[in-house]
C-alpha cells in the first residue's frame, strides 16, 4: 500500500488555504540571500508546488497537514543550512514534477486534481515518471528526500521551522518534551 493512496483526498480550496498559510509562515527571510520572494531559497512557484506535494504526503484530515505545519518553511530553512548540498536537487526536482505533470495531465502539479497529483507522485516514487529532466536526476531519489524531509518537518522540533505550534506532537498526545534538570531554559509551552 502506498502512503499517498491511503490518505484522504484534498480539496483544492483547503489546499489554497494551506498554501497561503505556509507562505505567511515563511515570511522572515534570513539565510541564502534575498531572491525577491518571502522564502530563503525557493521561488514562490517552487514553494507552492512543494506545499502541494507535502500535503499529499501528510494530508490534512481532522488534524492539519504538512503545509499548514510549515514543512515548506522547514525545508526552505534547511536548504540554507545543513541541506545546502541538496539545493540543486530541489531546484531540478520541483521543476521536474511540474514537467511530469504537464506531460501526464497538461497542467502544473498544483492545478491537478488530488487523484492526478497522487498518480504523478506514485510514478515519481517508482522512478518511471515522464519528463526530460529525469534523465539528469533520479526521480525516486528525489521522492525519497521529499518523504524524509516532510517527516522531519512535520514530526521534528518546531525550532527547525516546521511542526507549527507542535501540531504533530499534539496529535500524538505527546507533551512538548521537557528537558528535566534545566526547566528554566526549556522553550515556553504553547497552548
Amino acid at each position: 500500500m502506498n502512503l499517498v493512496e491511503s490518505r484522504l483526498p484534498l480539496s483544492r480550496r483547503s489546499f489554497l488555504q494551506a498554501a497561503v498559510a505556509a507562505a505567511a509562515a515563511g515570511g522572515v527571510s534570513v539565510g541564502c540571500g534575498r531572491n525577491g520572494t518571502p522564502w530563503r531559497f525557493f521561488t514562490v512557484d517552487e514553494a507552492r508546488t512543494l506545499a502541494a506535494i507535502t500535503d499529499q504526503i501528510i494530508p490534512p484530515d481532522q488534524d492539519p497537514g504538512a503545509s499548514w505545519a510549515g514543512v515548506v518553511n522547514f525545508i526552505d530553512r534547511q536548504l540554507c543550512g545543513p541541506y545546502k548540498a541538496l539545493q540543486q536537487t530541489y531546484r531540478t526536482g520541483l521543476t521536474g514534477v511540474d514537467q511530469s505533470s504537464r506531460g501526464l495531465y497538461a497542467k502544473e502539479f498544483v492545478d491537478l486534481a488530488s487523484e492526478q497529483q497522487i498518480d504523478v507522485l506514485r510514478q515519481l516514487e517508482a522512478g518511471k515518471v515522464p519528463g526530460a529532466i529525469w534523465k539528469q536526476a533520479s526521480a525516486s531519489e528525489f521522492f525519497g528526500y521529499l518523504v524524509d524531509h516532510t517527516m522531519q518537518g512535520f514530526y521534528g522540533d518546531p525550532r527547525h521551522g516546521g511542526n507549527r505550534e507542535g501540531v504533530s506532537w499534539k496529535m500524538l498526545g505527546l507533551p512538548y518534551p521537557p528537558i528535566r534538570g534545566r526547566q528554566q531554559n526549556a522553550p515556553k509551552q504553547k497552548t
Partner: protein
Amino acid sequence: MALKHVNAVVVGSGAGGGIVAKELAEAGLSVVLLERGKWFTSFDDRKDDLRNQRTSALGASFGPDERNPRVYADNSGGEHVIPSNHWAYSNNAACVGGGTLSYGAMAWRYMEKDFRLRSTYGAVEGSTLEDWPISYSDLEPFYEKAEWEIGVSGDDSGNIFCTRRRRALPMPPLAPNRSFKILEPAAKRLGLHPFPIPMLRNSVPYNGRGACIRCRWCVGYACEVSAKCGTQNTVIPRAIDTGNCELRSECIAKEVVTDERGRVRGVAYFDSAGRLQEQTSDLVVVSCSAVESARLLLNSKSRLFPNGLGNRYDWVGRNLQGHSYTGAAGLFEQETYDDLGPGASIAICDFNHGNPGFVGGGLLANEFIRSPYQVVTGVTGEGIPR
C-alpha cells in the same frame, strides 16, 4: 619548540583510551591523551530530536563534523566520499569520552562461547571466524573492575545463559518502566528468561554523581545530570587527578612515527590551532575507534612499513562492522509507552547461541526512547505505508 618526552601517548579518549590513560597514569607513567574533539558538558547539548548523536539528520552534536569524510564502498564496489551524517558512515562521537558521552550505555559481557566461535561453529565458509586467544575467565576480573569503577546498574542473575558472575553489579536496576512490566510476564509465559539490562547508568548515587532522573533525553545525548557513566565523567578525571596525565583536546593524530629501527617514536598530530606537532613517547596506544584506528595505522607509512603499521598481511581496516541492529514493532490495544527514560530496560539472551541453522545470534531487548520522527522512519516493511 619540541614537546617534552613522555612515557605514553594515548590516541583517542573514548571507551578504550580513557581507561588506558587512567591505568597508565595511576601506575606512575607520564601520559598525553590526544582527542580530536572537545570536552562537552550537557549544557552544550540542547536536546534536539533532529540534531543529536543518534539522529543526525541536521547534524551530530558531538561530531565528527564535515571535515571528516569517509569512503564508503557499495555492494558493486563503487566508492563514495560520504559526510558524517550519511547512514553508511557508522558515526561514533568525536569528543572527550567518545561514544560513551552519548551512548545508550548497555554494559554487556561477552559470553563464554563468544570467545570460542571457531570451536563452537567450525570453519564457516567465506568467513574468517576464529577463537580469541583469551577466554572468558581471563577477562572476567577486568569486566568486574570496569563494572565497579565506571558504574553499572542492573541485575542479570536471571540470565541463565551467562556464567554466574563472581561479584554482583554495584547498583540495582532502575525501577521497571511500562514496557518492562508488559514484556517480563509475557517472556516468562513463553518460557524465556528476561532480566533487567546491565547499564552504565547510576540507579542510585554512585561515584560522587547522582541517580538517573528517568528523562527521555538519553541515548544520543549528554546526560543532563551526569548519571550516565562514560569515560569523560569517571576514568578521565581520575587520570588527570593523578597529575600524570595531560588531556589535549581538539588535536587530530596524523600518524604514528617510527624510527629507523622500526620502533615507535611518538605521534605526529595537528593541534587545536592546526599546527603540526610531534609528541615523542616510549609507548603509543592507538584507541581511536575501529575505523579511525585503522585509518591512523594505514596513514603511518614509512620505509619499513610501506603499507602502514601492523599491516603486513593487509588486514588492517578489514572486517569492521558498524553499529547496526534490527528491530520489530507492533501495535497494541493498550498503552505500552510511559516516556520513562532510558527506555531500554529488559532483555533476553535465549537466542545468543544455539539457533538451528545460524552461526551466532544476539540478545533481544526493548528499544530506547524514540522521537516521533524516529518512529515514523524506523517502522518500515511490507504493508506499512511509507
